């Protein structure tokens, strides 16, 4: 099937198998390997991307479902090392990551979340990342990272 998907600001037209998962389209077809696969069952959230601005799990969406739509992956958040997204800065400053495997999904989930709730409580952040599993950090420094990002964003960066 022919699809046309805007990914990180660039339009890609590709002929894909109907069963091709969006995560494989991003990783294998487009070579955007920042989006990870952790469970294939929509539980762990490592594959989270933005679809038309909303956080979705790309391991249980077909590529064809993204036809005509806009996808942002972790690679699309910052144009270069000097212009990191506030959430990326938060994760770096607060040691919000260790092995880094869940991190792109965490960053995509929380960057969408902060748009809805720019001034969250710790409990609201913890609720927002219930669908993202991290085995390394115990989540506390992720909560700190998101608070850090929220402060940056509120500061009108």
């Amino acid at each position, binding site marked *: 099937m022919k699809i046309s998907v805007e990914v990180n600001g660039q339009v890609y037209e590709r002929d894909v198998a109907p069963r091709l998962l969006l995560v494989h389209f991003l990783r294998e077809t487009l070579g955007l390997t920042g989006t990870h696969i952790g469970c294939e069952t929509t539980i762990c959230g490592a594959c989270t991307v933005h679809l038309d601005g909303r956080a979705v799990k790309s391991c249980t969406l077909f590529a064809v479902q993204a036809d005509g739509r806009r996808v942002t992956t*972790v690679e699309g958040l910052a144009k270069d090392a000097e212009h990191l997204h506030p959430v990326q800065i938060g994760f770096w400053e607060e*040691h919000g*990551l260790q092995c*880094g*495997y869940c991190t792109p999904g965490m960053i995509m989930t929380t960057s969408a979340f902060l748009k809805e709730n720019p001034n969250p409580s710790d409990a609201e952040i913890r*609720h927002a990342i219930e669908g993202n*599993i991290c*085995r*390394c950090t115990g*989540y506390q420094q992720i909560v700190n990272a998101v608070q850090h990002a929220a402060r940056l964003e509120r500061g009108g960066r």
Partner: protein
Amino acid sequence: MPVRPVSVGERIKRREDPRLIRGLATYTDDIKLHGMLHAAFVRSDYAAGKIQKIDLSKARARKGVIAAYTFDDLRGKVARTPCVARPEPGRDAEHPLLADGFVRYVGQPVAVVIAEDRYVARDAALDVTVDIAPSRAVVDLRGALDPARGKVYADHADNVALAVPQNPENAAAVDKLFQAADGVLRLELVNQKVAPVSMEPRAVLAHWDEGPQRLTMWTSTQVPHLVKQAVAQCLSLSEVRIRVVAPEVGGGFGCKIPVYPEECLLPWISRQLRRPIKWAETRTENLANTTHGRAQYHELEAAYKKDGELVALRGRVLSDVGAYPSFFGPAIATFTPLMMPGCYRLKGLSVEVVCLYTNTMATDAYRGAGRPEAAYAVERIMDAIAAATGLDPADVRRRNFIPKNAFPFTTAGGAVYDSGDYEATLDKALARFDYARAKSQRDQARAQGKLRGIGVATFTEICGLGPSTAASPIQRTGSWESGMVRVEPTGNVTITTGASPHGQGQETAFAQMAADAFGVEVTDVEVLHGDTDVVTHGVGTFGSRGLVVGGTAVHMALEKVKAKAARIAAHLLDAKPEQVTFDGEAFRVAGGERKLTFRQVAEAAHLWNVPVPGEEPGLEAVARFEPTGTTFPFGAHLCEVEVDRETGEVTLLRYVAVDDAGKIVNPLLAEGQRLGGIVQGLGQALCEEVRYDESGQLLTATLMDYAMPKAHMFPRIELDSTCTPTHLNPLGAKGIGELGTIGATPCVVSAVLDALAPAGVTHIDMPLTPPRVWAALQGAAK
């Protein structure tokens, strides 16, 4: 006084992070090679049985399929799955890379299919039909003790993989201590089977390059050098023809120490087909066929005195090693009796270990590896003594502590503890927690009918493995670590380490050490690891040894380089080496103005236009650190829980952890290790369990069924620390990676049992899921 600020001890953010937060890091499954094929495994649906027939014809006929193999294709060409903790003959079991006639656990690889495309490979794996005549599976650990109820290996006398019996002389001495005691407690404790669940599942990419006759393999491992050695032996290849790369590795927690069948098979197939082959584990494969942890059953007796003294321990540890001896697997449980004395000066310990085969996935190291089981047991005993004597649980621990002036201390388990000050951590934790106030609040809540409880755990652990001679009685691998320091002509520094970090942040920590050693910026240091062509030799990252052993090797190499730089500087400054000192930035001649910066010396060492007599040009050094003993970090954790009487749900209200890991290189990273470990330990206590049914079928094969700890389950954990350095390494570091999983599990169980005590509950086994807690409440009410 150093001229520059010292970076060791500072909260420096990680140099690893920019690539990770931008999605630009390269994990194994991110690598694509020209002509690369994909592997998919056909796995056993049965826990035990005889293979009648494997039909590959349909798979082979599928478009896009290149090859398919069973054990018949491998017979005589490859060796068994690597194992360094091999049981003795008669108890050892050879685990073939693909099932050879019999299957012994669900998910055992039976055949492998190679295809042009990942999806086609999975389709083709489903095309393969495997006829298995199932037989009765041995699933229950205690049941495995009785060979009449079934054996995993028909040609073995029983299911025992390794038995370390009690020493009769010691046992008799311990029995005497029991006779003199005021009371004896008996506990049976389950330390359930759990899955490590690194967020990156395993992945392997093997590329046999026919031109240079060389294998390169990328694999998600904690121990690339051990993989190289193991694959060389398994495939009868010279190790000089093998390069193993551990690229970005997405967590390990012990399960990426074993060298797995897939890691040996893919290189062999790549050599057959002369094409690169990749396999990335699915989460279901990961839960079924990546090694599990814990899986112990303890039958213990504790002799105590009325004043709360724990006099002696005796009993038995049963360990479920699963269907085959994994890499270190059978050795893990030998750490449990060794560490069972914990922080306490009991006089006697006689605990036998019996490791048993079952028709379940093999167990191996899992964050703590044998020590969390020990800490859980002795902490449950401390609480039981408190309950029996009516003393406060914190007081009971305090009166049993090894006093701080008694170190080095040889415990009843035979371990030699390097240093400790257990009262200091406990006092700090009690103060931080405001223990007296918390107890009175708990009592008020109880008066209102609430099930509120406070838990306490004080613990120590064995870290920084080796020494090589004493790592484990049956472990056949060295336990040193390597470090190499290479100074470039500019004075910038490249470090290589045999440690193979996968989230710990050693790139940052080691760069801090080099920056301080030479007076360069942290950003002018590169730290390379995880590539056997780049790193001289190495062992790997596990057992909280990355900094303790790996960091010390780097420190030694830094010192060697600094000493040579001082000799070069002395010659260039027309001084004697003993007149030259390094002030953190420059080499200076004592009592004069003459100086050379480190960068100037580096340039001179490479330029060599002023040769230094007796020296070679250049500035680099290799070191290996062989520890003379293990380190014993420790901590005191306190927490408060509330249990919902109607649902059995446990809510963690507060958690305070005071840990002592000796000197800290980077507090930010140390906190990360502790927080992550604590939540992992809470996961085991509250929700995690690998479950098989009675036929050996895995019931927890997806993350929908295996309960992982999630963010909303925990309050903000409060951290504090004390610092008792070790004399066993120049860094004074004791190891930090496993503290959390060791302290947290007994701490929260202690709190839940305290909460349930007014309802009459005296025992519960993990995980403390709502149904289990609710059932305990109902049982006690009867």
